[in-house]
């Protein structure tokens, strides 16, 4: 089977709260999928069920055709959890060595430290790390497991912009070898840059599923902008055209058609730019819609 993660009709309640509501999700091997959604959307509960930390009330979860706990034990899946901490009083290298010894087919400790950019910090006590460094240690604990599938629950939370960039650079190098990654995040630019598929959750349900581009398109109009000589006639293009001091703005659901029409037409246009609908808009619209 080529399915890394399979979630079938899963519901999970905590008392009166329905944390995950009849969710079905299949992720093929080798994909990097973003799980997007506001707080309380059910992302962390989904991650917890994929790790076997909590059981679904109904439905089934399998990871690489195994039940989650078996997959964890076999090193098939490893996670950076949102609320996890590190063992105090030991060094970074000792902690990663612990991880190495727990998994059946691990990387070497040195490799995992290298991947996480921790080589120079290997002898530092875990309690004396900065937030960003601690986050990299958590990543190294995942990397050392050498898992087919990685779950990252808001891996860059509490990191600054530089830290986020470094984290994703390390991650891309790591996933280039065909691993499956499911990451939950709040940061939309991380989705754009790192995911080939986006699953949006809200109120325990999946409300959208597609490529970042598809989601953006769902958000509505793109904008095509260009300049015309001041004396030029107002162009006729698919979309809503406004002209202001030589600058033409076309709002359109189909920017490709607008650009084709422009290019094949008679206009002497300059400085063309196409502004895609923003994922932020799309995200906001999807997650704030009233439940049906």
């Amino acid at each position, binding site marked *: 089977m080529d399915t890394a993660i399979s979630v079938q009709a899963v519901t999970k309640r905590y008392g009166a709260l329905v944390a995950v509501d009849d969710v079905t999700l299949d992720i093929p091997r080798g994909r990097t999928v973003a799980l997007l959604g506001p707080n309380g959307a059910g992302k962390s509960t989904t991650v917890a069920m994929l790790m076997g930390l909590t059981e679904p009330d109904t439905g089934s979860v399998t990871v690489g055709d195994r039940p989650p706990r078996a997959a964890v034990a076999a090193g098939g899946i490893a996670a950076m959890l949102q609320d996890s901490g590190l063992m105090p009083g030991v060094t970074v290298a000792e902690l990663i060595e612990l991880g190495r010894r*727990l998994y059946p087919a691990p990387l070497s400790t040195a490799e995992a430290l290298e991947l996480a950019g921790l080589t120079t910090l290997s002898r530092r006590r875990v309690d004396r790390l900065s937030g960003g460094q601690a986050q990299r240690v958590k990543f190294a604990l995942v990397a050392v497991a050498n898992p087919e599938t990685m779950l990252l629950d808001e891996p860059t939370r509490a990191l600054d912009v530089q830290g986020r960039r470094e984290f994703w650079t390390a991650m891309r190098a790591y996933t280039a070898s065909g691993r499956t990654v499911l990451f939950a995040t709040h940061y939309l630019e991380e989705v754009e840059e790192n995911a080939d598929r986006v699953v949006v959750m809200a109120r325990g349900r999946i409300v959208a599923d597609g490529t970042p581009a598809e989601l953006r398109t769902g958000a509505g109009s793109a904008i095509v902008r260009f300049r015309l000589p001041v004396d030029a006639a107002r162009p006729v293009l698919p979309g809503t055209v406004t002209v202001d001091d030589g600058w033409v703005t076309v709002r359109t659901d189909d920017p490709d058609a607008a650009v084709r029409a422009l290019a094949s037409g008679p206009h002497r246009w300059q400085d063309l730019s196409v502004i895609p609908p923003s994922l932020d808009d799309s995200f906001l619209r999807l997650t704030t819609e009233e439940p049906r």
Partner: protein
Amino acid sequence: MTWYYFRLECLRMLRDPRYLAMAVITPVGFYLLFATIFGKDPAKPGELKGTIEIMVAMAAYGGIWGALSATGPRIAHERSSGWLEQLRSMPLATRQVMAAKLAAGMVVALPALLLVCATGAAFKGVGLDAWQWAAMAAAMWVGCLPFALLGIAIGYAVGGETAFPLSYAVYLAMSILGGLWVPPSVLPASFRTVADALPTYRLADLGWHIAGGGAPAAADVAVLAGWTVGLGLLATWVYRRPRRSAAAAA
């Protein structure tokens, strides 16, 4: 391997200055102080010399804190810091984690216990037979087990902020009432009754019997075994008690 986890648990304890100060240096210091003040009188017939009696009491005092502090405050802290959650996401069962912590608590109890004995032998002229030293250390070491179990119960019962003061308060109260500071023989009868029921007193009494050249009293063994079973059940119950899952927040 769980073995490596157990090793790390021991290592971090031995690196902790608070452990060294409270479980190792404090009992040795108190022993030197008390043995110097109260240890001069020659032993009355049928009683231990002061230097020996206090040595056993302080060895128990050190060993108990080693076992209790390695489990209680640490488990509570790791529950709130998320390390136990991290471990749950790795191929290591919680019962293996607890077994390793229990074993580590026992390991770090040993230096605390042995150092007081070594101080007695080296500086206070305590001369016991080799078998007495060995039997006393072994018996008292095993007798530290209920305190490591008590630590697990505390660690799962209360939060990271409370666990340390609570453990320490329980430790002090049981030590005082159990006659580790003042021998129960000089206290009123009601205190004696309380002491008789406490594992702290029974642990010291185990050592006193062996240091006196006799076999351990059956009552000591029975009471300590009772506490071990009782606290083991308590720890299991507290651990299994339903708790609000961390995942419920999201």
